[in-house]
């Protein structure tokens, strides 16, 4: 999967906005949205929220986990544990990037939030690399990882599976003569 595809999936998440226009309910294939009344908060998917924000038709309200105190707790928790801790949202990285790119004036202390989320991400990636490394070294057959988000899986997924594939091929070729079908593997 491309990271852009993962971001596309993340844009379906709901976020609260405060519009400054009014519109009746709109019926889309994926569901209904609205009605929009000026000054009243309403939940919309992120793709619509970003579009409306760029056209100056709404004000974004950051999700409740996007707060300096909470993110500090999450980051410290992540650093303490050896395994992965649950994240506030399965798309926390994409949402942070999108919201901070387009609506950083609606989010208080945006720079600190960016730093905290990046710290958390780095810790989790380090853990992922470590576990992948030990997996390969000990030639395990399967592994189970909880609380990983799609973006993190996507960064290592392709590389890991292809690397394991190659290693398997190399390993089977180490036993010469036992099977003359080695050429079939190519």
């Amino acid at each position, binding site marked *: 999967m491309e990271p852009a595809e993962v971001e596309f999936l993340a844009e379906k998440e709901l976020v609260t906005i405060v519009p400054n226009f009014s519109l009746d309910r709109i019926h889309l294939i994926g569901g209904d949205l609205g009605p929009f009344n000026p000054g009243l908060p309403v939940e919309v998917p992120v793709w619509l929220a970003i579009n409306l924000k760029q056209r100056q*038709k709404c004000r974004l309200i950051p999700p409740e986990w996007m707060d300096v105190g909470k993110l500090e707790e999450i980051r410290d928790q992540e650093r303490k544990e050896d395994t992965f801790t649950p994240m506030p949202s399965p798309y926390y990285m994409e949402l942070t990037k999108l919201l901070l790119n387009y609506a950083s004036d609606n*989010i208080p202390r945006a720079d600190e939030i960016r730093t905290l989320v990046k710290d958390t991400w780095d810790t989790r990636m380090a853990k992922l690399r470590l576990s992948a490394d030990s997996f390969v070294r000990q030639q395990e057959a399967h592994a189970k990882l909880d609380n990983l988000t799609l973006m993190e899986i996507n960064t290592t997924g392709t590389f890991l599976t292809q690397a394991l594939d190659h290693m398997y091929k190399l390993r089977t070729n180490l036993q010469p003569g036992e099977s003359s079908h080695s050429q079939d593997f190519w």
Partner: protein
Amino acid sequence: MYQHTLFGAYINAIILLLLQRVLLLVASDVDALCACKILQALFQCDHVQYTLVPVAGWQELETAFLEHKDQFKYFVFINCGANVDLLEILQPEEDTFFFICDSHRPINVVNVYNDTQIKLLVKQDDDLDVPAYDDIFRDEEDEEEDSEDESDGSEPSEKRRRFEEVCCTGRKVTLQMWLFLHFRREILFDYEQYEYHGTSSAMVMFDLAWIMSKDLNDMLWWAIVGLTDQWVQDKITQMKYVTDIGILQRHVSRHNHRNEDEENSLSIDCMRIAFEYDLRLALYQHWSLYESLCNTSYTSASLKLWSVQGQKRLQEFLADMGLPLKQVKQKFNSMDVSLKENLREMIEESANKFGMKDLRVQTFSIHFGFKNKFSASDIVYATTSLMENIEKEDSETTNFIKALDSLSRGNLDKLHQGLDLAKKQLRAIQQTVASCICTNLVISQGPFLYCSLMEGTPDVKLFSKPVSLCLLSKYLLKSFVCSTKNKRCKLLPLVMAAPMDVEQGTVIMVGIPPEVESSDKKNFFGRAFEKARGPQGAVLPAGPGRCCPAGSVHASSTDSPGGLSPASKRCLPAQKPQTIIELKTEDRSKFLDALISLLS
């Protein structure tokens, strides 16, 4: 008539009901660029389709209109078109609408009093001094008595044409009508005599955005740049500038009050605008202080930097402030922090001793990110030099679009390119001014001063563009006023000529008002140039000139050359005042003679 608050409603009507497209005709100056940016942002919010056409003069305006008049019903003119009778020149269809947002004054009376097709965007408190309707246009009943026209239109332009026909054909006129015509002529003469500038179009557009509640910090910044452009080009009085700064200051505090709040401060990437009582030195934060002192017209003229004594005075000035030469000649950002801290106050104190009382000026600066800090005048210089870039052989439209792009925050590389070009331009201007003064190229022709640049002068190609030539002439006049001892010459206006296109043998000429302390920046050269040229373009058919401030001659109209009688001059095709014109080189001396006899 004035349609300020309804413009928003009109635009909404356009998108929701009619889904029409709009044609934007934008003049070539920084104020127009800024207004255009604001309008483009508003259009993008509401998904209004538009086409942008940059125009550099009357010819281009007419051509653009003729090309597009079949496809568009709504035209928006930015910084062009207010001071001529648009309906007569362009001859539009009945259902075309013109929206005019122009800072040129005086606005043509036909444009003001037309109710149907022409909508003017002006601020409520902008005093237009328009003559009363009854003084210029007569009612229908009186008309029908005198002429047998069956036309029933109440279009002021038609009425005016009929009056012209009446007086031209020399029909028998009643005493009442004759008196009316006489007074009308006087009133129009006074009204259209001098031209000047009103509120910047960028500020009017920002006002519009504010009324529609769609104003952003970005648009506020563009409004600031538009106003600063008017100040840099000396188009408005100091009083008006300070008033407008006050108005913008209120908006700035409204948008930027969160910067002081520590708890919820904005991300560093967000744009912040700050009010500053900054130095008047051009580009000093992107240059070295020494270079900036040498190349700003104010300091260079006051210290007389073209002479040897001037250079000595500069050294004294720097020594007085206690700034070592080595520090001052390096890039401003690398200067010692201890020196930079109190720089403004130090410079102001020393400047007062050397006779430069206005070295500090109220302005705004913007900063975003950790590195990017610009003052409004920096942006003005950079954008002007991008717009009139002669280095590459790009078309004018490409340069226009590049300059337009450089106003967005995302195009910093273009902005830096513009800053480099601006430094070159300022240096070239200073060197040309110095050489003109030292070689006494500025001569008094009687009613005005005249200076002509020869073809072989270094950097003369830079001055083939209107705005650069205007800047050069203003700096030259300032320096000349400081250098000459002749009291009478100090009060004269200046006419400047430079070669425009060597192959075609054309010359570009510009006229600017005199440099006086309490000047109201009113220019009469537009009308004077027009008359000196003659009725049918005796010198040359109207080339690409710019619609700049103009005014008529202060001599009585019976003295106009070519024996034009006062009555017949009103029969001419619609007049287009231009303070910047293009001539053929061989016609130059004839034109000058005509101008001298006109003005003396």
